[in-house]
């Protein structure tokens, strides 16, 4: 979910004064309507309308109307054959929150997302630290570590499903030889672990790119000063590099959560399909299951609304993160 820091660094359009007295009286409203407008601009309203029209039309049909429908569906009960529709208020939500399945799904999603987020960051941080401290072969290491970015979550899922397949998978065989009763098709924890590993493997490269850039951006003078004061590389990393990269790390935590919550659908669908016994049925996967497999549209819409709320929350956090990133720059 890439976004921009558009709002924070808007140029104040106040420099171009409103031309009409009436407009000036509208005060702040008019000033805000100048925000993000180039000082040198054109006045061809019809042309401008034509230029934004495609974007707005696509958004209307595939964003606003669907979102509106999801919001309204969340408060009604629809029978699967599309016949009747009854307004039920918050019933869908209360049923949802009292259902143990939904609670289990929420807890496992949280577990999965937190583990995935921390593990990805730690691994990426270690690799970025190492990259920062080697001279030879940097480009090659980078090239290889970036490779999983090209690989779709679904393919990452297929690869790991094979590696840990209890009958043919080479790594599963190794585990069996070591005495572990590994079987993600039957044991819930194994399944969750497998999905997490596939998700981490796919996402380390993303954090890695940003951390390498952030570590590189630490001014050499600061590092030299710390070195003169007698700080060894590891200490310098912990007390200088990491704090200076803190905004990036915050940003990455938010992005990892977004990835874990919304983008791991392909992995789950190819590795476990939410099973066994719902042990990998994350919130996003459950929306799909309930809506498309069980055709429980009301509940599914209510779940969508909850996810929307989470997504909006993370978007705000993401903007905060970007804002801080700007402020910290040396």
């Amino acid at each position: 979910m890439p976004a921009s820091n558009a709002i924070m660094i808007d140029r104040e359009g106040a420099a171009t004064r409103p031309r009409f007295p009436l407009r000036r009286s509208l005060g702040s409203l008019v000033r805000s309507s100048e925000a993000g407008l180039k000082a040198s601009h054109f006045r061809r309203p019809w042309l401008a309308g034509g230029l934004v029209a495609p974007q707005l039309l696509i958004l209307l049909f595939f964003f606003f109307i669907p979102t509106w429908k999801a919001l309204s569906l969340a408060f009604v009960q629809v029978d699967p054959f599309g016949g009747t529709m009854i307004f039920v208020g918050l019933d869908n939500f209360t049923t949802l929150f009292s259902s143990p399945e939904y609670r289990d799904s929420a807890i496992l999603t949280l577990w999965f997302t937190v583990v995935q987020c921390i593990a990805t960051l730690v691994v990426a941080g270690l690799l970025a630290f190492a990259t920062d401290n080697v001279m030879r072969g940097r480009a090659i290491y980078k090239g290889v570590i970036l490779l999983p970015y090209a690989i779709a979550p679904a393919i990452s899922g297929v690869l790991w499903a094979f590696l840990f397949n209890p009958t043919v998978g080479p790594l599963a065989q190794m585990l069996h030889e070591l005495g572990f009763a590994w079987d993600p098709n039957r044991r819930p924890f194994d399944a969750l672990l497998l999905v997490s590993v596939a998700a981490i493997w796919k996402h380390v490269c993303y954090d890695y790119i940003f951390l390498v850039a952030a570590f590189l951006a630490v001014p050499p003078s600061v590092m030299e000063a710390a070195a003169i004061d007698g700080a060894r590389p590891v200490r310098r990393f912990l007390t200088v590099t990491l704090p200076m990269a803190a905004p990036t790390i915050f940003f990455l935590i938010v992005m990892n959560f977004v990835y874990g919550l919304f983008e791991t659908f392909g992995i789950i669908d190819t590795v476990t399909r939410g099973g066994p016994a719902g042990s990998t049925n994350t919130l996003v996967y459950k929306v799909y299951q309930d809506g498309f497999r069980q055709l429980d549209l009301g509940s599914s819409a209510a779940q969508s609304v909850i996810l929307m709320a989470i997504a909006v929350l993370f978007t705000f956090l993401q903007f905060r993160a970007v804002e801080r990133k700007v402020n910290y720059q040396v």
Partner: protein
Amino acid sequence: MVERHIGLSIFCHVVLLIGAAAVCMPLYFAFVAGSLTVGEVQQVPFPLVPGSHFVENTVLAWNEGQFSRLYVNSLIVTIGIVTGKLAVSLIAGFAVTYFRFPFRMTAFWLIFISLMLPVEVRIIPTYEAVADAGGPLRALFDAIGLTGFIADRTGYRLDAALQWNMINSYGGLILPLIASASATFLFRQFFLTVPDELCEAAKLDGAGPLKFFWDVLLPLSRANIAALSIILFLYGWNQYLWPLLFTTEKAMATAMIGLKDLIPVADAQPAWNIAMAASFFVMAPPALVILLMQRWFTKGLVDSSK
């Protein structure tokens, strides 16, 4: 680097080698599996050196999964997403930064809001929107009485003409994925950094807005367009959820769905060799893009999340 430590240097190389090995390991085993016969894949222990059937398995997977068709579908959809999103966002970004027009801020905020909700959270209603793209228009014309009016006067059934089902069509695969404003914001941000003098000069020389856009802004945006195209290419090619929902006919599926269909299910013959061989040609295009255009890709990634 401030000073050199041999010990640290060795440690770092070891860490990076382990990291690189962890990245390559699944790919290597996939390659090994893809080069064995069905019988060999099921051996215990699993062979560590590749067999000699990789080409054979690849050809088999390609034909069995009808990938000639699926690959073309994937390419059409990906190129549609890349060009569609670039075109739509470039002109929309241009309009909100370079034009004064009524409701400019409204347009801006409408676009801005769409950044908040990823497609995954509105799966079902978007599915409905695609299954019945004409629905909102029908409802609108009904409400304002246009449908009845036209039917009375000419006998033409407007509501029947507005039955657009986009399931199993390229439009249905492409359009919902273009409906996000991230790229518009990227270009808007970039346009704000373009010096005002350029526009002044263009105006003095008598250039209209479109000429300015085409001859000044577009050439300046070339680097951003390249970087964004790469990110969008990966995004489009790697789509999974949309094609899964929107293509019920095999002939309209994408390569990613074709690969999913090759994964052995519990009771069938464990033909992992075929699935693994197929995974290579499905991930080849994005992998090549990343390897060959690493610099642009990194720029695109860092820019698009700003």
